[in-house]
């Protein structure tokens, strides 16, 4: 995507040590306007700690986070005026109405008018219940209110920690569409952490993977477009021999194999399998899911020893 643009957010050599344990180790990351970046990692990898340092809730042991050129650590007010945050479950003041909650947070930013508050309420679809106490809201409604408070001041950068928790499938879809349009139309840079890989896959342009406090991979989602095919025939060992003789490196997957191959040479390959006297059961395009990649990258995603919280 638009990687040529100046990054809006920069994590520079970010480290965090808690009680002698390195939770985050020398993390560097750039986020760009108009781009949705997914933040993945096994439990305890340091996702929440990283996000909290970006939101000014935790102080890094060393390193800095810059938003629009301003340091979150040294110039909090300038940096954070560009940031909207939902950290984990958006905990609101339950004894107040949704509207009063929004008024409360609006007062903490510059120039958020009553009109703007109602506009955001409409955007997240809460206008019918906004004057009811948050204590009566469902988890999904609280998520919507959480999104509303993060959008009040038109941030250039949005941090979302597990934003789809508690949303129903229709809500998730709506949310996804909304985030995509925020990124594409308003040029907002969005950083989403989620454990729902399929969610990240549908929502993000890019993913950053963290494990044991280190950034182990950053990749463009549309980057890996090498085509694959799944092929299944019996007997399997003969199929493998055939594939290898054709110069493929077959990877076992279920009852068949996955090979790296586009559509052009598939008919020819099928013919030679059948000509070899094998029973061909299936040939279909195979798309590697993010889950496959994630497991590949993190080696099964064990929980790190230093469980960060």
């Amino acid at each position, binding site marked *: 995507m638009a990687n040529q643009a100046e990054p809006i957010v920069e994590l520079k050599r970010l480290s965090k040590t808690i009680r002698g344990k390195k939770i985050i180790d020398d993390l560097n990351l750039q986020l760009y306007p108009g781009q949705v970046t997914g933040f993945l990692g096994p439990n305890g990898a340091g996702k929440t700690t990283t996000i*909290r340092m970006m939101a000014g809730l935790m102080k890094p042991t060393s390193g800095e986070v810059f938003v629009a050129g301003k340091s979150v650590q040294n110039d909090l007010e300038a940096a954070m005026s560009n940031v909207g945050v939902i950290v984990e479950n958006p905990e609101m003041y339950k004894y107040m109405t949704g509207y009063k909650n929004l008024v*409360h947070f609006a007062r*903490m930013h510059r120039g958020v008018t009553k009109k703007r508050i109602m506009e955001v309420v409409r955007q997240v679809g809460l206008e019918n219940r906004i004057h009811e106490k948050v204590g009566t809201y469902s988890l999904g409604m609280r998520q919507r209110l959480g999104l509303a408070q993060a959008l009040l001041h038109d941030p250039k950068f949005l941090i979302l920690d597990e934003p789809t928790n508690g949303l129903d499938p229709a809500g998730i879809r709506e949310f996804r569409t909304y985030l995509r349009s925020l990124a594409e139309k308003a040029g907002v840079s969005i950083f989403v952490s989620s454990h729902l890989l399929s969610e990240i896959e549908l929502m993000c342009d890019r993913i950053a993977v963290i494990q044991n406090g280190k950034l182990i991979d950053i990749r463009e989602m549309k980057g890996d477009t090498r085509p694959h095919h799944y092929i299944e025939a019996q007997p399997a060992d003969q199929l493998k021999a055939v594939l290898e003789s054709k110069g493929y490196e077959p990877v076992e997957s279920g009852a068949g194999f996955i090979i790296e191959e586009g559509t052009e040479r598939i008919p020819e390959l099928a013919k030679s399998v059948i000509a070899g006297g094998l029973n061909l059961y299936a040939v279909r395009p195979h798309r590697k899911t993010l889950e496959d990649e994630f497991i590949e990258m993190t080696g099964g995603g064990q929980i790190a020893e230093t469980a960060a919280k």
Partner: protein
Amino acid sequence: MLKLLQNEWMKLWNKKATWTMAILLVVGIAGMMGLTKWISTMEGNRAESGDVAAEGQADAPDWRVMAEAEHADISAQLAAPGLSDSRETDLKEELQIVEYRLAEGVEPHGSFSRQQMIKDSSGIATLAMLFAIIVAAGIVATEFSDGTIKMLLARPVKRWKVLTSKFAATALFGALLTLVGFVVSVVMSYLLFAADGGTELAVQGGEVTEVSVWTLTLYHLFLAFLNIIVYTTFAFMIGSVFRSGALAIGLSLFIFFTGNTVSALLSRYEIAKYLFFSHDLVALAQGMTFIEDVTLPFAAAVLGAYAAVFLIVSYLVFSKRDITA
């Protein structure tokens, strides 16, 4: 900053507990004064049935007899050895006032007179303090226990500003309760008790002078409010440091209730002077103290130092803390 204070004030009054406390304060004070009225009526009845003396004549010798008894009592105390300087000064002033009353025939206020009731209204500060402590203890701690702290601090607002708004809201709440309590007390004094012809006296610059009941009461209320601030600052600190409202309320109230006993036990030792719960400014202003040689300015200085330390600790901890809630 004003907006932050507005926020804290809004959150405070959207809680049912706050309204409960305010209502309890009003009902409690009105109830206490009603009870006092009832007791005064009972005593009046007893006096009437026991003594058939005419009302007008019965009162007049009464205060003279009591003043003479007081005079004898104070003289005896002054004659006793081992008096501290401050105590001696206090007693001499009291003696001066009693002598003046007897010589000039200046009647003091009766114990159930309207003026005396107004004078006593600085006592409402105890109730105001109790509620102010509860609010101070919870105002930071509940943000942590409800998890709202991360929503509150992930903002373009420095933490010290957030904490200041919370402290200001607490102080404002304490002041409001004191004021409301005072107003209720005054209204009840007017509704239930009759004024008498007594005069309030004080020694100023060696001379016995008349003082207004209002001036005296407002001065006492102000001193009571300073005491409230010190206790609330303590509760505020505990709440900010330990993030537990229950602990902060418990600890503050524990000190609030046992502080007097502890400082009485320690009163022989120098250290008692330097404990914040030893000093009740209103009692000091009324010449009641059980620690020797503690003057009002000294006590105020000790309390000021404590309040400053409590606040500094709160600010340091709150601004440095990693939010993991």
